[in-house]
């Protein structure tokens, strides 16, 4: 069982935000879904055998790319050809 406090914490970790009004419903639905997921406990084994899989690599070569103005076109806040982001510190 997860508590409202747990769900609040997960919402913060995931940066999705949650209002106090939503917390009860989210927690109830979360528990219902997690209870369903718990049936996986009965699956034997801890790790799937990885086979027939290989990595696809290529040389890191410079190729033509989109012009700066097109790349920036969708950015809501810009400054001197850069994208403005919220402060980190």
């Amino acid at each position, binding site marked *: 069982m997860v508590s409202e406090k747990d769900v609040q914490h997960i919402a913060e970790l995931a940066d999705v935000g949650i209002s106090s009004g939503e917390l009860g419903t989210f927690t109830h639905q979360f528990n219902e879904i997690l209870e369903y997921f718990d049936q996986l406990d009965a699956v034997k084994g801890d790790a799937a055998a990885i086979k027939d899989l290989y990595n696809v690599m290529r040389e890191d070569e410079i190729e033509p790319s989109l012009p700066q103005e097109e790349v920036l076109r*969708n950015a809501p806040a810009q400054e001197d050809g850069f994208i403005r982001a919220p402060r980190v510190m």
Partner: protein
Amino acid sequence: MSGTSIRFEPDDTFNAFLTVCKRPTHTGGKLAGVAVAVKDNISTRGIETTCASRILKGYVPPYDAHVVELLRKSGAAIAGKTNMDEFGMGTTTENSAFGPTLNPCDTGRVPGGSSGGSAAAIASGMVRMALGTDTGGSIRCPAAFCGITGLKPSYGRVSRYGLIAYANSLEQVGPMGRTVSDVSTLMQVIAGYDRHDSTSLNKPYTHTPHAEIKGLKIGIPEEYFGEGVDPKVAASVKIAIGRLEELGATTVPCSIPSMEYALAAYYVTCTCEASSNLARFDGVRYGPAADTKKPWHEAYQEVRRAGFGTEVRRRIMLGTFALSSGYYGKYYAKAQVARENVRKDFQRIFADVDVIAGPTMPTIAFRLCEKSDPLSMYLADILTVPANLAGIPAISVPCGKADGMPVGLQIMGRHFEDERVIDVAYAYEQAVI
């Protein structure tokens, strides 16, 4: 772009389109002048692409998805972008931020999802063909609910470059159409190698449907006719399988015991992948502006709470939880074991049979607002998710009606035998026309 244009001004009473291109241009080629609709999670250069989410409202991609580039080269006219469950998360198209799409067969019902707009656009005759995407049934479910045909290709056969990712290891772009021939033609255009997708394989599709199925061996899994499957739907599908027998196929019973855990494995996997993929939507590079004066967690939470719908936030949170410290082994690792068990079951069955047949969906289309509880909505995907977990091709072709609504016959095949599932669907379609 050079070339001529067509006029495309549909009377879209079903809310199938989020964007309509009224004068799409086109060149010559296999699909010269054919209006093709594209699901709104596939990037189209110069045409707004929202994934039916407020967080991408106004986003205009600076490049085409590989499949869209191929469509344009084939002469197709991009007619518009179709409605969907936000980011592909849903089974009804009700999770769109821009209102639900209605089922053209009964406007009191959902068209299925998440590619509900594409299916409704075809079923209502607005377009002949459309692209959808299928992560856990999102092409086959709306095809079944709206009475059209849709193929989830083998994983790796169609490039995902430019598809706005939800769950990379499960999803494929695929063709939807009114007939099996149209689905096959669209598959010819979109399949093939793309170096921009590291999971792309060099397996082009050059096939033309062939209705001969004499001697074909069809596996009938007991799980596809068991508890939770509407007996009327099961009856329609059994009649359809009888038709395939009349055409010279033989059927054998089989069992997929791993299906017991398939749905849980699917939802753990897709929510985990979503929690990582959707981290990129933060109002910095695209979407509504984050308040750059605020600390970043606060700014991101504001943008994402306002921009994402409830189901999207729920899945991001579920995935975040399932991957968090102390729970990874319990959820994600176990889901991957369960997924491998599904693959092994299919391998074992396909050593003996050529294709597997059953219903696409356990019921007919739900009424609007009928599935308000998330878990009961998830359970509706039980018959479609196995093909995504295993990466095998699966098609849904209309097979009669139950309670006046269309039913879909699902044919699943071995890896890279998309041609064979197309042929079986074609044989059935030609027999009942």
